[in-house]
């Protein structure tokens, strides 16, 4: 390992946060408070997870590994749910969607021998898959809410003409799936041209040959496309029904919070 940031340098690098705080203060963005909390959370969470991972890798026990994976997925689902406030079963849908996308995607990678059943491979990959799936689910939720709100007149007309829920929703859930998957597709397009993805950069900085690093990165691309695809479809199909009550009437989340 030829990267090692010593604690002194890291402390000095904190000045970078000050730049962000200064901009926020000067431009009256009122982001100072949030920035400090975000930085503090990131530092504390990463320190804990660093020691935790070290312990888990040392123990190398499959039960511990699975518990850690489940813990990551649970947290991701909890975060994904936040965009879905008011959507019925937002957490349950996010959680099952993340379980599905993570284990299907990783299952394929393990079976094909791309990654090994070792905690030091399984856990980081789980984090990447679940993290991207989480973002996708959040976007799907937001898109559904936005579209049902904007198109309530059209949805109402379709219901009045005797359409079932799927017919009444029209293109809304398809558009939501697209919204969930789009950022991954967009970012993948610029890989290597604009951005050197984090995992690949990390490997190169740690001294791994760029060719090995890109192989891993290509695997990550395949993995993320599959994961965001599965979780977006799952979330969209299950969540759009929650915008209707059992009598096939449109029920927007805003109304639910009032009632």
């Amino acid at each position, binding site marked *: 390992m030829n990267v090692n940031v010593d604690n002194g340098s890291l402390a000095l690098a904190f000045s970078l946060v000050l730049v962000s705080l200064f901009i926020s203060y000067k431009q009256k963005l009122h982001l100072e408070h949030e920035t400090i909390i975000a930085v503090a959370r990131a530092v504390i969470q990463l320190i804990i997870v660093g020691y935790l991972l070290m312990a888990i890798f040392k123990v190398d026990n499959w039960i511990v590994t699975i518990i850690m994976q489940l813990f990551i997925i649970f947290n991701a689902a909890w975060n994904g749910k936040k965009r879905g406030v008011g959507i019925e079963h937002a957490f349950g849908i996010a959680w099952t969607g993340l379980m599905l996308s993570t284990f299907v995607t990783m299952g394929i990678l393990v079976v094909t021998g791309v990654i090994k059943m070792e905690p030091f491979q399984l856990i980081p990959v789980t984090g990447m898959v679940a993290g991207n799936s989480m973002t996708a689910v959040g976007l799907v939720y937001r898109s559904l809410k936005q579209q049902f709100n904007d*198109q309530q*007149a*059209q949805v*109402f*007309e*379709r*219901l*009045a*003409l*005797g*359409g*079932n829920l799927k*017919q009444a929703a*029209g293109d809304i859930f398809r558009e939501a799936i697209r919204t969930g998957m789009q950022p991954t597709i967009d970012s993948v397009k610029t890989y290597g041209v604009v951005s050197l993805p984090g995992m690949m950069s990390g490997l190169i900085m740690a001294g791994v040959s760029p060719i090995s690093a890109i192989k891993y990165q290509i695997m990550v691309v395949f993995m993320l496309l599959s994961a965001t695809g599965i979780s977006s479809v799952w979330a969209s199909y299950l969540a759009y029904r929650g915008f209707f*009550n059992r*009598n*096939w*009437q449109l029920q927007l989340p805003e109304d639910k919070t009032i009632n």
Partner: protein
Amino acid sequence: MDLKVEKLGVSFEQVVFQNLNFDFNAGDWVTIVGKSGTGKSVFLKSLARLMDVTSGQIIFNGQDIQDLAIGTYRQKVSYAVQSASLFGKTVRDNLDFPFIVRDQAIDVQKQQAGLRQMDLPVAYLDHPITELSGGQRQRVGVLRNLLFPPEVLLLDEISTGLDAETKQLIWQVIQTMHQMEGNIVLSVTHDADEMASARDLIEFGTEVKRVKK
């Protein structure tokens, strides 16, 4: 065909209406009048099951509508909106929908016949909905309800904001259908002409009563 309303009531924070009892039979054309906010539109929507009632029952051809499949019921008891916003991209998307919900093959000739009746060119099938005028939009909107003549047609102030000519045209099309089918039409209106010519009226106010002339 008949539609019966028994002790019907709807309340939100306040009572909108309560204890309504009406019997509508084949061939009835009932004009519903009253000030804004008296619950006329809520009444029509609850008949189409687009809103839930707080108390009472709605009986359609002898069956409580709660026991009927919702989609099929709404195809038979068809609610026409005040100002149709239309969905999809083209007129065709809107006129295909009644066929799709009935799981029937799309009959272009029927769609074209409908457009002609509404005095719209048949080429309008592929016309983008964003390029239609308000009057044209409403004609397409109502046509969706009429392609398969419903047993009960619920009209919720469909002529509000339309020019005299369009209004006349839409009424003629609906009246022709009504005479041919002998179905039930319930029409909420603020239109002076329509109110003047009404024979069978329901007045919404502090009291709700049906008046036959």
